[in-house]
């Protein structure tokens, strides 16, 4: 099934449970749904896998909007089903109570936090709005007037809440170097909470001048990656100079990730292996996440250049 040598994660017979999906009546009872813990496991793993894929979109040789949309829709479907049978609420509550939030995949965690915030705001959890870690280099517009704001970068990376410190690690390596805030036309800096704070940069503006709300920004950030901006004005020599001493090797994702694991070439699913956990058992183990966190802090330092 895989290119030879790749480890298989689940037996394909086990996949039947996931592949066959919604068997039975249109609105199964919660009891019927939780019948198969194997199904829940598979579904959770599919969710984890999908979120990782979304975050690592830019690792592809060719960024692919169609693929991202399909993955995002899959995540939505899973979330809807989990919401219907109550597992979603259970998961978010468990995560909130967890000692070490970094046990969960970052994006899942963020997703839950978003839901929490929405709940706190008195709304029902909205359908999952795609939260992707924005590759800063795709969407940033460098501030042309005045000095380039390096301090804005630092403030963006420092988390809004302590829980996000684990979340922001992913923003670092995938931000591919110094991140620049985009300035709104009214001069206001983007500093949005939650999912946006892990992302280095907010979306570059459309030619048609959409003024994006906070919510739309998230989808924009993922899908906006795939825009091909029309030819920019010739690069400012001052900016070229600014970038000239940045070591281009830091832009090599492979180099970055090599620091994380000993394997010379790491694919997105190895990341899944190293970080994700399968099911509720994950919540109890905290030692592995701490060593991961140290490694990731290390990488953050490299990227930020401190």
């Amino acid at each position, binding site marked *: 099934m895989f290119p030879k040598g790749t480890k298989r994660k689940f037996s394909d017979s086990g*996949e039947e449970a996931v592949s066959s999906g919604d068997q039975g009546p249109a609105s199964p009872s919660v009891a019927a749904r939780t019948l198969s813990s194997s199904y829940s496991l598979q579904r959770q793993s599919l969710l984890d896998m999908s979120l990782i894929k979304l975050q690592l979109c830019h690792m592809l040789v060719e960024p692919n909007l169609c693929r991202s949309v399909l993955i995002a829709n899959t995540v939505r479907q899973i979330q809807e089903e989990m919401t219907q049978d109550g597992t979603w609420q259970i998961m978010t509550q468990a995560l909130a109570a967890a000692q070490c939030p970094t046990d969960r995949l970052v994006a899942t965690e963020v997703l839950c936090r978003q839901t929490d915030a929405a709940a706190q705001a008195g709304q029902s959890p909205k359908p999952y709005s795609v939260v992707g870690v924005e590759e800063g280099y795709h969407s940033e517009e460098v501030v042309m007037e005045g000095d380039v704001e390096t301090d804005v970068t630092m403030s963006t990376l420092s988390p809004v809440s302590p829980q996000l410190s684990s979340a922001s690690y992913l923003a670092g390596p995938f931000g591919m170097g110094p991140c620049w805030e985009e300035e709104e036309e009214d001069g206001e800096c983007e500093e949005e909470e939650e999912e946006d704070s892990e992302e280095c940069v907010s979306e570059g503006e459309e030619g048609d001048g959409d003024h994006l709300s906070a919510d739309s920004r998230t989808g924009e950030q993922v899908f906006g990656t795939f825009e091909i901006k*029309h030819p920019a004005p010739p690069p400012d020599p001052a900016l070229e100079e600014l970038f000239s001493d940045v070591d281009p090797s830091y832009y090599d994702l492979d180099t970055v990730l090599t620091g994380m694991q000993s394997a010379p070439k790491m694919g997105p699913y190895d990341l899944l292996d190293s970080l994700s956990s399968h099911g509720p058992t994950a919540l109890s183990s905290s030692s592995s996440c701490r060593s991961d966190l140290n490694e990731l802090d290390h990488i953050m330092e490299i990227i930020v250049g401190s």
Partner: protein
Amino acid sequence: QKCVYSTWWPYLFSFLQFLLLTADIISTVEFNQSGELLATGDKGGRVVIFQQEQESKNKLQCRGEYNVYSTFQSHEPEFDYLKSLEIEEKINKIRWLPQKNAAHFLLSTNDKTIKLWKISERDKRPEGYNLKEEDGRYRDPNTVTTLRVPVFRPMDLMVEASPRRVFANAHTYHINSISVNSDCETYLSADDLRVNLWHLEITDRSFNIVDIKPANMEDLTEVITAAEFHPNQCNTFVYSSSKGTIRLCDMRAAALCDSHAKLFEEPEDPNNRSFFSEIISSISDVKFSHSGRYMMTRDYLSVKIWDLNMESRPVETYQVHEYLRSKLCSLYENDCIFDKFECCWNGNDSVVMTGSYNNFFRMFDRGYQQDMTLEASRENSKLRSVLKPRKVSTGGKRKKDEISVDSLDFNKKILHTAWHPLDNIIAVATTNNLYIFQDKLN
């Protein structure tokens, strides 16, 4: 000339040619309208055009081979310095214009820019200038005593490709399709969210005729995957989506064709519902039949033929590799589920063809309701020999010569195939190589 082999399958393809292309991955394959020329585009932005040899009158059963006719660099990588974003030079599509004079024209596109190329032959050159020597040096005017008219003399054939038009800056997203209109004056280009209409002579503007970009990108759930003009009706085109729908639009109805004239969609089979249902329903290619009465769509597991007069469901469905349905989770994990296979019709619309994995490709004869699996592989086929049909074993017991699903090589995928418009010659692209097969029967 009677067929030696008794077979229910009306075609016997034999291995005509194996062409080793560059180290770059082939990204598109297209015959021109006469079939004399075969164009390939690759990941490195190059276009290689092959020309069929004139048929030898002596060898009745053997069509001419294809030889390299022209090679040129169509697109170069572009780099947006401000965003550290590279725009790939990979040729996504090539489409030939109908031939009007001695020169040939084709459109080639990468993610962002479409170019019109003129390919012309030069086999004569003027000789006998008064003021210049043959090598170009100017003659001493004192030595010029007579006047003569330069004449054209034959020279070695030179094929030149020159860019005649560059259609740029009209697409924010990645271009996936181009299609020349039957009026031969306009063409469409489609990206993930928009379809634009161009006039071949005008490069500085295009008309946007479809725009499915939501006001709020967060609401984006569907993208355009392919688009094509109707072969006869110059006002009609279709575009397919990632949700498995095809919309047929009439440009006479409105300037912006966001609302379709017809919507083709097959209702989902509730028994097959899974988290992967939408992904596998995403249409990777759409092609009108030559007649214009039908269109064919390719989704991950099947090929469907639609009658343009019936929107509710396809008239024919062919399973390409149904044995993969139970493997969708693995294929999702290794991203194979996102592979975009193309499909094509034969000249008289009786057979359709598409690629699969393990360098297999599949043909479906609509008349005989038979199908065939063949393999494009140098190791497993000798030149000039008839291709042996392949079979993937789906049951428990694997018969001799069958291949089990688990030993299929998912890195060997055939995404691009083309069928000669008039003859039974097919071009099949594996990752780096182009295979040409011809039908042995006359």
